[in-house]
């Protein structure tokens, strides 16, 4: 069981960043640029990223 504290430079926090910017935050106007379909596509890509980051971790001592 590992606990990783991650910094803004690390890829895993990119996943959390995208989660927050695309589905969180104040919706100030009716016309936010991205459609729900776009957001879902980004989320699918992100899950792949998490996996790839985990694979990379195996290389780092």
């Amino acid at each position, binding site marked *: *069981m590992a606990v990783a504290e991650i910094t803004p430079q690390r890829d895993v926090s990119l996943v959390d960043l995208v989660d927050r910017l695309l589905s969180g935050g104040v*919706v*100030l106007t009716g016309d936010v640029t991205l459609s729900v379909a776009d957001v879902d596509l980004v989320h699918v890509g992100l899950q792949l990223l998490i996996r790839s980051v985990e694979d990379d971790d195996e290389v780092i001592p």
Partner: protein
Amino acid sequence: MIYVYAVCDPETADPVPARRGLGGAALRVAVADGLAALYSRHRTLQPRPSPQAMWTQERTVRALMDRGAVLPMRFGTQLADEAALVETLTARRDELAAGLDRVRGCVELGLRVVADRLAAPPQAAESGRDYLLERVEEHRRAEQAARDVHAPLARLACESRVRRRTAAPTLFAAAYLVERDAAPAFRAEVERAAAGLSGVRAVCTGPWPPYGFVDAEET
């Protein structure tokens, strides 16, 4: 058109942060009715959700976050001009001011419980039965993570929000609104709670601006 990054108290936005917004545009501040908004002007702007654009927005918001309470906007928030921004701030003044009071003195911390690669099921299940068993096992581990990790963290937080939709390998994801001074204790609790779990890892991210605690909408 203008691109909006955050809403805050007027004193939080003074002086205007010395950095550039999306596309290298200068940051500006509009003040209306006791509220300030940080924005930039653009001739044309079609922001795509690239990592660079999102980090630019995030760092712009973070420039205000250390000074005081801030309400981050969702990515892609654009308005026609300053007049429209002032009009929106005025029309939603009470709601936005209450939102600032809600997050004052707090930061958001993220928790993600991810299946360990070694313990994760194989990519392609051999049969429909194996597939179902794997899903049951994933569900069981997610519930265990929620019980063992989330509950003590939620007690340390002012508010918490569990993400309903997650996809493998993420088993559990949640956000916590935590008093700034309590963030180290929160991280220590993540380590303590996570040590009892097997087959998963817990990742704590942040501090973030309070993206998950700006309205009543479930995520």
